[in-house]
């Protein structure tokens, strides 16, 4: 950990309305992941402001950030980040544990969301018994179970083959159709085209921000 600093983002002015599905695109090192991490309160900006749901997010200590993350945000990562010694169901239950919801209720809700992503029968399986696409769906169920306003996905399809990627995008689109705001970091054109808006980031600045006609993933999937 050197002392030298690097300004990754240089003056980003950018807003997302409720119910949008935004793709953040850019080559690696462009700052897209950093942007997402700041939005997700996993990282903090050195300067500037960030409003979430009408609240100014600043001077967050870890405890407050944890509460906001738990209440407003759901995360999906490229490498799934499931806890390996817990079953699919237990992984999905975990965010509710930190909301101090009792076990029965946790189980009920988690199962509902697992079924929602089509993994009801795999509830008792451990992550290493699931395929990549299934793991990512468990991760999505886990992100959704706390009923967040915004779902942040960092290269959600990065570790998946094309067919599975499209299936997953279909799922994300259906989630967006239910009113949840989605921000997806990707560098794949076809994935970005399945969103409603594409933001291009290069060298820390937004170079392009356009609304597009969404390509439905269902047309690629039988």
């Amino acid at each position, binding site marked *: 950990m050197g002392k030298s600093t690097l300004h990754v983002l240089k003056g980003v002015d950018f807003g997302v309305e409720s119910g949008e599905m935004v793709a953040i695109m850019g080559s690696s090192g462009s700052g897209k992941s950093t942007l997402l*991490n700041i939005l997700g309160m996993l990282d903090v900006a050195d300067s500037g402001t960030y409003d979430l749901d009408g609240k100014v997010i600043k001077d967050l200590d870890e405890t407050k950030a944890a509460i906001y993350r738990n209440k407003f945000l759901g995360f999906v990562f490229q490498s799934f980040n499931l806890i390996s010694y817990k079953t699919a169901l237990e992984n999905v239950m975990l965010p509710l544990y930190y909301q101090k919801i009792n076990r029965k209720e946790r189980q009920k809700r988690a199962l509902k969301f697992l079924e929602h992503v089509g993994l009801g029968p795999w509830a008792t399986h451990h992550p290493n018994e699931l395929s990549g696409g299934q793991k990512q769906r468990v991760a999505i169920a886990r992100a959704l179970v706390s009923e967040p306003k915004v779902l942040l996905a960092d290269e959600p399809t990065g570790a998946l083959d094309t067919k599975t990627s499209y299936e997953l995008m279909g799922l994300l689109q259906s989630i967006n159709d239910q009113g949840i705001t989605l921000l997806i970091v990707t560098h794949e054109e076809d994935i970005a085209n399945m969103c409603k808006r594409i933001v291009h980031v290069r060298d820390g600045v937004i170079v392009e921000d356009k609304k597009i006609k969404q390509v439905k993933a269902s047309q690629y999937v039988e």
Partner: protein
Amino acid sequence: MWSRDRWQEMFYTLRKNKLRTTLSGFTVALGIFIFVILFGFGNGLKNAFEQFFIDDATNTIWLYPGQTEKPYRGYKAKRRIIFKNDDLVDIQQNFTFFLDYITPRISRGALVKQGKESNNYTIRAVAPGHQFAEKTLVTKGRYINEQDIKDKTKYATIGRLVEQDLFGSVSALGENIDVGGISFKVVGVFKDEGGDNEERLIYIPYTTRQQIEKSNDRVDQILVAFRPELGYAGALAFEKKLNTFMRKKHNIAPNDRSGIYVRNVAADLKQSQQFASVLQIIVTFVGLGTLLAGIIGISNIMVFVVKERTKELGIRKAIGATPKSVVGMILHESVFITAIAGYVGLLAGVGTLALIGDSLEDYFIINPYIGTTTAVGATLILVVFGAIAGYIPARRAAKIKPIIALRDA
């Protein structure tokens, strides 16, 4: 904070990570186990040491007659010194201030018969004071008394095992025994903590022995007991004066190292006590060392455990775990494991010590034990240090931004 949910989550985590749980638990249990065993052995060694001394009184000085090495005042060298009754009287008269009691001891072996039973025993001809010097406990009847000395009675006080050997389950009190051809009446039975040999003795009046041996007035050894109030310094001064007095009386050259041998039990004891306290220091040192090794072991394993879980902690934080709950979780687990494992190690150690018991007596380890306070204290120390060792990396893990913890590496 201590909700059922939290316990469930903890048990679940521990069960699902058996290797980690076992490893850290084993370290703690082993640490405590070794501590208990070593400390117990140290105590056993000390016990063995003390055992040598509990048997006899410690305020005594023994005088043994010997052979001179140097000529003195017209006497030739190699002269055999003989103690007689007048030595007893002289010591008594000259050292009234120092003296508690004085007794001679004349030891002879003899075949002792009673009915069809017979056996060889050591017969000690003594004065009444001897009872205190040997801490003899009379269980039946009485010890030899002043009247016996005066009247030269043929009375004997016999050891518990002598009674058992010769009389079986019948009481020997008032019965006659044949000691080397002379009939003695048993007036008392005693026991002694000094072991079996000490209980196979027969005590008779020293005057009776002198009469049997052609009415001489010789005594073999003289045992002088000083008043305990004299203390250690007083005892040493008394020993010196007594030695000088006797040497002068028996015309032994002052610079002759032979002639009379003096053994001061108080000085012996002092030396042994010093040795015992050195032992105690060694035991404590070994104990602390073991404990320290245990603490280091636990610290290592805790650091390792937290390191291994960094990613998991990052995931937990990303989905809403507060730093407090992360630290709490690690602490909860570590304290739980160390407490349970410590208790197991403690029980195993104490159990092993109890099992060993006196079986290592030949190796000078008698009744190894560990005080409850020491044992529980050591366990608590390990638990506390386990918690601290877990807390530091846990706090650091909780402070790391989740994004760093989540980075693929």
